[in-house]
């Protein structure tokens, strides 16, 4: 296959990740439903996590552990383990934030009986 196509695919990973992030931020800022806002925040987190893993990727690299290919010398390339460790942490944090957000959404729904942020404005938004 053509090499140029592979290069394009490399960039496509970054492009997709940033696109997912932007979709998430758009959802969080433009949607009226509290649940959709929470989903938007969560989607933008996922996009960022994809981007981070893509940054650490090395073409043809193996997993950053002593895998068979690495030990017998056929494959000396490893992907960067640091971004993967960071992403694990970021996923856990994102999960925690989403859980707190959903708990607040439940409280707001019980208090106001609606999920539309236009109807929940006792405070100045």
């Amino acid at each position: 296959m053509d090499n140029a196509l592979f290069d394009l695919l490399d960039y496509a990973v970054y492009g997709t990740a940033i696109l997912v992030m932007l979709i998430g931020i758009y959802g969080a800022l433009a949607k009226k439903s509290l649940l959709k806002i929470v989903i938007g925040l969560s989607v933008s987190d996922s996009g960022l996590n994809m981007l981070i893993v893509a940054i650490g990727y090395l073409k043809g690299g193996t997993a950053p552990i002593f895998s068979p290919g690495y030990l017998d010398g056929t494959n000396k390339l490893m992907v960067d383990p640091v971004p993967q460790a960071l992403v694990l942490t970021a996923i856990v944090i994102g999960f925690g934030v989403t859980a707190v957000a959903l708990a607040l959404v439940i409280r707001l729904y019980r208090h106001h009986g609606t999920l539309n942020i236009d109807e929940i404005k006792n405070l100045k938004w």
Partner: protein
Amino acid sequence: MVGTPVLFIAIPLLAAFLIPLLGMIWKELVRIVPGLVLIYLLILAVNLLDHVMVHGPIIEIIAGWAPPIGINLVFSAFSGFLVTIMIFLGLLIWLYSYRFKKNVGYEPAKKYFLLLMMLITGSVGIVLTGDIFNMFVFIEITGISAYGLTAFYTGRDSAEASFKYLMLGSIASTFLLLAIMIIYSQLGTLNMADIANRIHTMNPTYKIISLIFFITALGIEAEIFPLNGWAPDAYSEAPGPVGAAFAGIVVKASVYAIIRYIFTIFDVDGAFNFLIIIGMLTLIIAEMAAIRQEKLKRMLAYSSIGQMGLVLVAFGFGTEEGVYAALFLMLNHAIIKSLLFFSGSYLVYNSKDKLIAEMNGLGKKLPITSFLFALGAFAIIGLPPFAGFWSKLSVLTAAADKNMIFIMSLILFVSLIELVYYLRVVNRLYNSKEKASSIEVKKPTANALITMLVLGGLILLIGFYPDVVTGVLHKASAALMDKSQYIHNVLSINQ
């Protein structure tokens, strides 16, 4: 030495998660244990600060990996000073809220103290860590506990304020992680000293992009205009002592993070001028907004935002005098704004809307609380015999050293606005012509009274003898300014 810096993170974190278990043994333990932990940490902080003043910074390596690979904690005169303020304030907040409301039962008290310990852990971690990703994790710990504390009261609109805070905080954390990854992808390191050492090799475009993302993300937490939309709601809906915790602990940690990025890590020209501009905007707009507020806590919140703007202006001078003034302001803001939140909570305790208009004649009904509120109000305006005077004076002299007459006059003009809206409240407390408020007052509990008296005493002490803190402040500002020493200290350490 009585311990190492890692205890500031390990002990409160452990205590936070042990609180529910200890509560099963004896319910009173959930209230007692945080206090014991904070007293121990305060002793530790003062001891370490004393040691650092003489022997230079303590750098602790976590898990045996020396920097730049592993995570390290830096307890310098600068970070140690901030940690000491935070722990001291945490202790006072604990003392104040020990029996804040008699009707707060075991379950809410358990959650409150758990979240408060997490908040202190996170904020202290932000200040101590020497690793940018580790700082991100601590910012998230602080953020999540702050969302929880904002939503503490179920009856009010607190969930709304908390959700607003969470939304902005969540976007902030996305930006922050993006900025961290831009730096990592360019330099391949997460250690602050190592980044600072090699930042000049980085492509300027990426450098500016990541700096912008950092400032946007941290600006949300540090209440910089125009990113501070969450702050007035969170302050006014959260319990009174939590307002003090936001003003005194969380925002301080975020301002620290901004300052650490601009002073130590990035070498971008113009970042200091940017700080002055953004600080001035925050100051002026927040004080303009404060004068229009009808609710006491919203007014205090806007005043707090304004003070943080002034702190950024003082840092923006970029000189050692400027840093000294900024640190002095941060110290004063921590004690004075806490006193205002503590006494203000009792002044509007039983009022439903917390309006300033409902505070008529409280000077007679609650003499000590009103007196302390007035003391705090005069101190934060910067009237001479109180602590606030010296910090405002040092900001003005730092501005004069840089020949920034326009900035000086603006600061003085804004002080006038401050004077107007604080005197408006104090006037209501003591003016006997207006019909006295019919709302039943709540006498402060003994521990709340002690807390407020301690803070009032401190304001007078620093006002009359500023020398008690100036020595520490000079060392702390020198420690921040000496960037190459910081890099050398961290990178030369070996296990």
